[in-house]
């Protein structure tokens, strides 16, 4: 990153002037913290004692054999506390917020994973927590809202725009514009103004660092390729960055949605619907129309359903350090089922995108090649989505019975 938080032409800081001081404070607090061995030690201690790191690297012998090509291994971020890599970032930022003397954090959330992670870490660190969430997302992802409430967080429904993630992000920034004195804005992915992309990627880099040190024992050497799904890009940055400049090929997997049409996917690469833009505080490849209006997105996985992408990844793509591909909803569900039945692992639908790409490519590779897939989260959270996608009738009966019992009680 340059001093201005630039990654090539991407990144930077394009925020309302009112936020300039807070952003600068954050920047220097982050730099100071990262130079302080005590901070790093505390962060590692929480990552270990609270979130259960290191997460393992799991060989998938059955899946690999069935595919008949490269050997597949999973980096198990699903085993983190809260069930996803999101925890790494909220631990880092939560501790930083405390160090900066903030009493409160705000967060935006789409499916609610980052919201739950923020609420968890806030409870743990004694911070107040307000989560902005699109009213539409709240309706569809209420279980996560329920957990946030149980954790003592305040969930604010955002009704502007499409009432989804993008709007929640805008609204969180509005809150921050008037609350920055005592409030830290805890962004959930490596997007937004500097230093967020660098900072979130930095906190997430524990993923790739662990793989670097685990691979020799588990794989016998470093992997040939690493796959990660790309929403905002934090799990991808986390596993990729420590491998920058090595011979390992890095592959990002976007949400292919249901088609290539406008609003049918969330691909910010390999489509002419996306191009360089500046919005939400930073420059990156945005899905946008001719007028520069950000476009609606669609994906079976709420966590990949985002219109921008980490400037770090956009720059890496430009420099040919990263190959981007996509997986459509259908292939994702197949990958989900395949991993469950062959290896007994229930992956998040987001992570199943990365699995789908590996499943598509592994058969074409030799048995000597080794792939690591970043399993960013677990699939329990996707119960309603998966049951709906698979049209599981007994699940609906169960819900109807539950509701009938509740009405009686």
């Amino acid at each position: 990153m340059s001093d201005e938080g630039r990654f090539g032409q991407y990144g930077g800081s394009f925020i309302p002037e009112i936020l300039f001081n807070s952003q600068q404070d954050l920047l220097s607090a982050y730099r100071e913290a990262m130079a302080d061995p005590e901070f790093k030690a505390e962060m590692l201690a929480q990552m270990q004692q609270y979130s259960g790191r290191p997460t393992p690297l799991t060989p998938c012998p059955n899946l690999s054999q069935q595919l008949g090509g490269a050997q597949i291994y999973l980096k198990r971020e699903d085993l983190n506390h809260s069930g996803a890599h999101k925890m790494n970032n909220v631990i880092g930022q939560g501790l930083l917020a405390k160090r900066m003397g903030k009493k409160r954090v705000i967060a935006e959330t789409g499916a609610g994973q980052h919201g739950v992670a923020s609420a968890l870490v806030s409870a743990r660190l004694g911070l107040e927590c307000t989560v902005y969430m699109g009213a539409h997302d709240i309706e569809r992802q209420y279980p996560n809202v329920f957990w946030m409430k149980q954790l003592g967080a305040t969930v604010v429904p955002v009704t502007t725009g499409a009432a989804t993630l993008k709007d929640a992000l805008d609204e969180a920034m509005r809150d921050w514009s008037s609350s920055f004195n005592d409030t830290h804005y805890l962004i959930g992915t490596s997007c937004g103004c500097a230093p967020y992309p660098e900072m979130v990627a930095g906190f997430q880099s524990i993923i790739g660092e662990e793989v670097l040190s685990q691979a020799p024992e588990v794989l016998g050497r470093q992997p040939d390729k690493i796959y990660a799904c790309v929403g905002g890009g934090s799990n991808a940055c986390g596993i990729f960055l420590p491998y920058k400049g090595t011979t390992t090929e890095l592959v990002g997997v976007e949400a292919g949605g249901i088609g290539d049409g406008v609003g049918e996917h969330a691909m910010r690469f390999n489509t002419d619907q996306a191009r360089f833009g500046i919005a939400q505080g930073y420059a990156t490849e945005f899905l946008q129309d001719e007028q520069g209006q950000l476009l609606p997105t669609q994906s079976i996985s709420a966590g990949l359903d985002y219109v921008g992408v980490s400037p770090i990844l956009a720059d890496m793509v430009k420099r040919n350090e990263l190959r981007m591909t996509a997986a459509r909803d259908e292939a994702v569900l197949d990958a989900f089922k395949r991993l469950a039945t062959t290896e007994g692992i229930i992956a998040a639908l987001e992570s199943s995108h990365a699995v789908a790409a590996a499943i598509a490519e592994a058969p074409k590779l030799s048995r000597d090649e080794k792939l690591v897939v970043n399993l960013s989260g677990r699939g329990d959270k996707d119960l309603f989505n998966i049951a709906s996608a698979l049209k599981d009738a007994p699940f609906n009966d169960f819900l109807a019975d539950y509701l009938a019992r509740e009405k009686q009680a």
Partner: protein
Amino acid sequence: MSTLQTYIKTQRESRPILLMTHVIYGYPTIKDSLEIMETLLREGTDILEVQFPFSDPVADGPTITNACHVALENAPTLRQCLADINALATRYPDSKVVLMSYLNPMLQFGFEALADTAAPAISGLIIPDLPIEQASFVEPLKAADIAPIWLTIPQMDSARLAQTLSAASGMLYCVSRSGVTGGATAFDAVTDNLDTLKQQTSVPLGVGFGISKPEHITALIGHADIAIVGSALLNAYNEAGLTQLVTRFKSLQTATR
């Protein structure tokens, strides 16, 4: 000196303070928004601030944000917006029009193209998510005499303020408080800050965020050059249409005469 700045200086010779009013292009329809603009120009607004809507207006509060989303459903294009403003502005030469939007729609249109198309109807441009470090983006506008209108905030450190003042032309948009558009403001606290600023620059000072009553404007006289009214007029319009907007405008305007 930019046309905008000259205009403000001239007007201020006979007036204690000027009024800048805000309209969203395309809200509730393109036709209606043009009617609102024309009404305000006819009623003698000094400066008309036309916001070209953006899907992600992070510096705006709920009223304006919602209006922008409604406006976007009418698929406004910047080209047509500029053409419409041009047609209107020529009929009201006594007022000035400034454009407000976010960086991305301008960027996608291109600042060169903007310079070509926006002048002469547009004499200033406000982009709340364009920081002063990135002033080079708006460089092409200078030749077309479109003044970039930079924002200042009370807590700005002196180096950054100096940088902003030296880049400023046309007017400065002095944000009166933290937060987004549309909330309440304690105006007394604001004036000190404006007075300090006035000593450092000859560029006219506009004050925005939270002006909804004549008293607010009266309180600014002697401290600022332009009172900027945004959400208050939009709220009036949403409550009871154009008539209510005109009533509200007139009551504010009396404080500027």
